[in-house]
């Protein structure tokens, strides 16, 4: 059931451990035997070809369901949240006042997966979620948000 053919792209054992800077298969001989040259996939324009591993926050029970995210953070209480998640002056048309209570990490996690945030209309919830997505280290709620980022 788990044979090599199911693990797509697995190179034969002998090649493992070679430097990635070595083109796959017989690149060293490529210049000499044109018939067996390797095809290089350069990818389409605008498509990223690299992913960098970022530090994962504690995805433990402790952090995931036991933290909260105020919307907006206390330093900005009173300001409204626009649909795109930015903070705007109170009363701005089309924007929403801050949430009456902070959201629990678990509520936000479920909302990110498609459920609605408790006590919000659809657009209001989207505005809040966009605000939460824009949180940065140092802002109240960031650690919590970072900790609920789940593996894809």
């Amino acid at each position: 059931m788990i044979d090599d053919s199911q693990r797509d792209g697995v190179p034969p054992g002998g090649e493992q451990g070679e430097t990635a800077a070595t083109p796959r298969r017989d690149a060293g001989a490529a210049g000499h035997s044109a018939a067996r040259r390797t095809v290089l996939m350069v990818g389409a324009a605008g498509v990223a070809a690299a992913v960098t591993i970022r530090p994962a926050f504690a995805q433990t029970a402790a952090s995931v369901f036991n933290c909260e995210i105020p919307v907006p953070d206390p330093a900005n209480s009173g300001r409204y949240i626009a649909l795109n998640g930015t903070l705007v002056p109170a009363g701005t048309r089309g924007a929403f006042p801050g949430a009456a209570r902070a959201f629990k990490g678990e509520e936000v996690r479920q909302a990110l997966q498609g459920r609605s945030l408790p006590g919000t209309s659809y657009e209001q919830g989207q505005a809040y979620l966009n605000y939460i997505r824009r949180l940065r280290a140092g802002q109240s709620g960031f650690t919590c948000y970072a900790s609920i980022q789940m593996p894809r």
Partner: protein
Amino acid sequence: MPPTTWVAAAPDRLASQQLDVLSAVFDRASGQTHLLAEPLPQILAVLNNAPGTSLDVANRLSISFDIEESDSLAQRISECLDELAALGLVVKA
């Protein structure tokens, strides 16, 4: 303005493992791990010890490989070099 000449990280700065279609690369200078798809590892390889412009890179790659689509190749290579520069793996000379 003359075209940019690029210098790649010295190979001994990188620990690399080809996993499947992606290569895992650990950069000892930055402490970062990158997963690189083609043609990024190949670009680093042809720049190794030989700085060059994006056109040089395209030419060198064409010597070793069949390239699937070549009319916008230099453009695409230049894009890839910018991506490598953002990771700190290549730098302008």
